[in-house]
C-alpha cells in the first residue's frame, strides 16, 4: 500500500517543483497532495436547499476522484450568502477549502456593497454545475399573457421581491427603470412567499430562477412571459423582447450571465496552480460521471457544466458593466423606494 502512494507523492512533489521552477502556465495536477487530507466544502446557505443539494453532490464525487481525500460539507448560512463567501475568500489558499455560493453576489459586488469582503475576479474558479436561467413569471389569473401585455397595462402591477439587495429586487428595479414598466415593487417576499401571494392574487408577478417556479407553472398557477438565456424553447427570450434598447440589452446580458453560471464551485485566490489543476480535474471527472448525472436528473437538477478558466472568464465578463448599469445596481442596494 505504502509504495505506490509514496511514489505518487514524490512524483507530485517533483512535478510541483518543476512547475514552480519553469513557471509553466499549464500546471500539472497534483492529485497526490490530497491523499490523506480533509477538504472543507463550504455551502453558503442552510442545509436543504438547491445549493446544499448541489454542494453535497459535488463534494461526494470530487472525493471519489481525489483518491484518499475526505470531503466535509460545512453549511455557513447568513446575510444572503455573504457570511459563507467572505469566509471562503479569507480561507487559507492551500486547496483544502473550496465552496459554493449564490451567483447573485455578482450584483452585490458590482454595487460595491459594504458587506462584500471578496473580489470574485480573483477567486480560484473550479467550475459550475448548472444553467438556471432567470425568468419573469405572471400569476395565471392576470390578463397579462405576454411581455408586451405587461408594458401596456394601465394600472401598476404588484411585483414581489425579497427586498433591497436581493437579486430579484435589483433585477426588477433596473428593468422597471430602463423600460418604464408599470410595476409596483413590494418587499419582504422570501422563499415561496411570492408563490402563495400570487395564488392569493395580491401579487401579479415576480422575477426568479426558472427552476424554482417550474412546478408552480406546471401546477397551473402561473406562466413565464420571458426568460433570460437558457436552452428551453417554450418561453420567449428577453434578449429578443428588448431588442433595440441598448441599455436594456446590456442589463439582460448581465441577468443572463447570472443564470448561466449557476451552482458554482470556487476557492480562495492565489491557490497553488498544481492544487487548483487537481481540483479542476476532479470536478470535471465528477461532472462527467454517469452516476452523478443520473442522480442529478432524478433530483430535477440537470447538470450543465463549465470548467475552470471558462467560468473565470464568464464571471469577469459579467462584472464588466457600464457605469449606467452599475448606478442602477447601487440604487437597487441602497434604497427601497
Amino acid at each position, binding site marked *: 500500500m505504502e509504495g505506490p502512494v509514496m511514489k505518487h507523492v514524490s512524483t507530485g512533489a517533483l512535478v510541483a517543483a518543476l512547475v514552480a521552477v519553469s513557471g509553466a502556465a499549464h500546471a500539472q495536477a497534483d492529485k497526490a497532495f490530497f491523499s490523506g487530507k480533509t477538504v472543507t466544502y463550504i455551502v453558503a446557505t*442552510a*442545509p*436543504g*436547499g438547491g445549493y*446544499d*443539494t448541489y454542494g*453535497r453532490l459535488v463534494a461526494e464525487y470530487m472525493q471519489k476522484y481525489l483518491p484518499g481525500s475526505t470531503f466535509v460539507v*460545512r*453549511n*455557513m*448560512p*447568513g*446575510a*444572503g450568502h*455573504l*457570511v459563507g463567501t*467572505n469566509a471562503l475568500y479569507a480561507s487559507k489558499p492551500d486547496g483544502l477549502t473550496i465552496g459554493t455560493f449564490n451567483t447573485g453576489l455578482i450584483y452585490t459586488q458590482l454595487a460595491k456593497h459594504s*458587506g462584500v469582503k471578496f473580489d470574485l475576479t480573483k477567486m480560484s474558479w473550479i467550475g459550475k454545475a448548472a444553467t438556471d436561467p432567470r425568468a419573469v413569471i405572471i400569476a395565471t389569473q392576470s390578463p397579462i399573457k405576454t411581455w408586451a401585455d405587461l408594458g401596456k397595462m394601465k394600472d401598476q402591477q*404588484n411585483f414581489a421581491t*425579497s*427586498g*433591497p*439587495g436581493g437579486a430579484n*429586487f435589483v433585477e426588477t428595479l433596473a428593468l422597471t427603470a430602463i423600460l418604464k414598466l408599470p410595476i*409596483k415593487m*413590494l*418587499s*419582504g*417576499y*422570501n*422563499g*415561496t*412567499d411570492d*408563490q*402563495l*401571494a400570487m*395564488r*392569493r392574487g*395580491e401579487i401579479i408577478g415576480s422575477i426568479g430562477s426558472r427552476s424554482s417556479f417550474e*412546478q*408552480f407553472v*406546471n*401546477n397551473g398557477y402561473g406562466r413565464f412571459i420571458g426568460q433570460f438565456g437558457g436552452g428551453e424553447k417554450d418561453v420567449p427570450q428577453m434578449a429578443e423582447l428588448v431588442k433595440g434598447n441598448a441599455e436594456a440589452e446590456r442589463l439582460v446580458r448581465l441577468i443572463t450571465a447570472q443564470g448561466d453560471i449557476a451552482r458554482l464551485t470556487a476557492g480562495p485566490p492565489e491557490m497553488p496552480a498544481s492544487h487548483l489543476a487537481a481540483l479542476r480535474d476532479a470536478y470535471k471527472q465528477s461532472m462527467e460521471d454517469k452516476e452523478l448525472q443520473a*442522480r442529478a436528473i*432524478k*433530483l*430535477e437538477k440537470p447538470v450543465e457544466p463549465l470548467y475552470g478558466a471558462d467560468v473565470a472568464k464568464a464571471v469577469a465578463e459579467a462584472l464588466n458593466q457600464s457605469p449606467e448599469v452599475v448606478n442602477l445596481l447601487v440604487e437597487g*442596494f*441602497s*434604497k*427601497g423606494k
Partner: protein
Amino acid sequence: MIEVMFGSLAGLLTNGHTMGLMLLAVMIGLVVGATPGIGGRLSIALAIPFIYGMDMTQGAVFLLTMHAVNGTSGQISSIMFGVPGDGDDAATTVDGYPMAKKGEAGRALGASITASGVGGIIGAVVFAVMIPVLEPVVLAFSPAEFFLLAVLGITFIAFLAGKGQIFKGIIVGLFGMMLSTVGMDPQTGTARFSGDYLFLWDGISTVTAVLAVFAIPEMIALGARGGSIAMMSSQNVTVSYRQLFQGVLEVPRHWWLVIRTSIIGACIGMIPGLGGSAAAWLCYGHAVQTSKTPERFGHGAVEGVIAPETASNAKEGGSLLPTLFFGIPGSSGMAVMMGAFLILGIQPGPAMMTSNLPLVWTLIWALVVGNLIAVTFLLFITRWVALLTFVNVSMLVPFILTLVMVGVYSSEGQWENLIVLLAIAAIGWGLQRYDWPRAPFVIGLVLGKIAEESLHKALGLWGMSFFWRPLSLVLIALICATIAYAVYANVKGKTVMPAGAGSGAGS
C-alpha cells in the same frame, strides 16, 4: 376512498421494513428533540444523505415520523429543568417547570407527553378533514391577517403578566419586540443595530434568545440554591407510575381544551409563515383566557402544559397540507422536508390528490402511528427520567449548561451566538432575580418580526384599507375583546395572574 384509507394503514402496519424504519425514526426524533437547540429542521437536513436510494413511501414515512415526534420529547427538558428546546417549548416551561419544582414532574410529563401525542393525532385528523377546504382557508390569510394574528398574540401578554405586573409584562414584551428589529430591514435593505457584524444581519436567533432567557437564569438560580430541582426530598415523593398515570388522565379531563388547542394548532400550521412558536403561545394564552381559575397559571397549572403541547404537535399535520398540495412549505421544517420529498421523487402539488392518494394516506397514518409509538415509549421511560429532578444540582447544572451551549452553536453553526447567549442571559437573569415575567420577551421577539414584516406588506398592498377586510374585522374584534377583558379584570381587582406568573420561577 375508505378502501384507500384503510388499505394504506394495512400496508403501513404489515410492511416490516417500513415499520422498522419508523421505529428507528421515532427513536432518532425523540433523541434529537430532547437535545436543546437542535430542532426538527436540522434533523431532517442531517438525515437527507441517508434517504438517497430509499423507496418513495419509506423515505417519506421515515422523515415525517422523525420530524413529527421531535416536539414530543422537546418538552422533557422544559419541564424538568426549565430549559426549553426552542421557541415552541418555551410556553411549556412556564407551567411545566413549577410543577417539577413541586415534585410533580411525573404528573407534568404524563400530561404533556399524552397531550402532544393526542395533539399529533388530532392534527392528522384535521389534515384529513381539511383537504377539501384547504385552498379557501389557506388563501384567506394574507399579510393583513398575519399582522393582526401577531398583534392578537402580543395582546396575550396582558394575561401572561399578572396584577401589578402588567406594566412589567409590557416593558419586557416591548424589549423582545425591540430585539426582533435587529438585522436586515426587508424594506430598506439597511442592517439595523448590527454594526459590522454579519451574523446579526439575520436577526437574533430565537433558539439562542429563548435559551438565554429561560435556561441560563434557571441554571444560575439552581446552582446558587443547591439541593435538587424538586424542592423536597425524594423520600416524600415517589415518582411512580401512579403519578404518571394521573398526568395522563389530565388529558381526557380537559378534553374540550385539548380539542380546541389541537384545532387551533393545526390551522396555524396550515397557514405558511406563522410558525410553531405562534401556535404554542396563542394556545397557551387561549388556555389562560378561558380558564375559570387563571391565577393558577405560572404556578404549575396542568392546562398550561397541555395547551401548548397539543398545539405544537398538532401543527405538524397542519403544515404538511400546503407542503403536499401546494408545494408551498407550511413551516421551516417542512421547507427542508419538501427538498427531501423531491429527492424521493414525490412531486408536491394538487395532483397529489389524484395521482398519489395512497401515499397521502400513508403519511397521515404515519403521523398517527408514529405519535402512538413515541407516547408509549416515553411514558414507559419517564419514570426514570423524572427521577433526575431529585438529583443534586451540582451534577446537573454543568451538564445542562454544556448541552445548552452545544445547542446554541449547532443550531446555526455560528460561534458569535454564544456571545449573544451570554448578553441576553444577563438580562434574563436580572428579570428572574427581580421577579419580572419572562414569557412576554419570547412573544415579543417571535411575533414582533411577523408583525413588522406583514404590516409593511399589507400597507404596501392596500394602504390603511387593509383593516376593512372581513377577516381583519373579526381579528380586530378578538383583539379588542382581549384587551377589554384584561382591563376589566385588572380594574375589578380580580387577579388575572398573580405576581411572578409567566416567569417560570416560583421561588
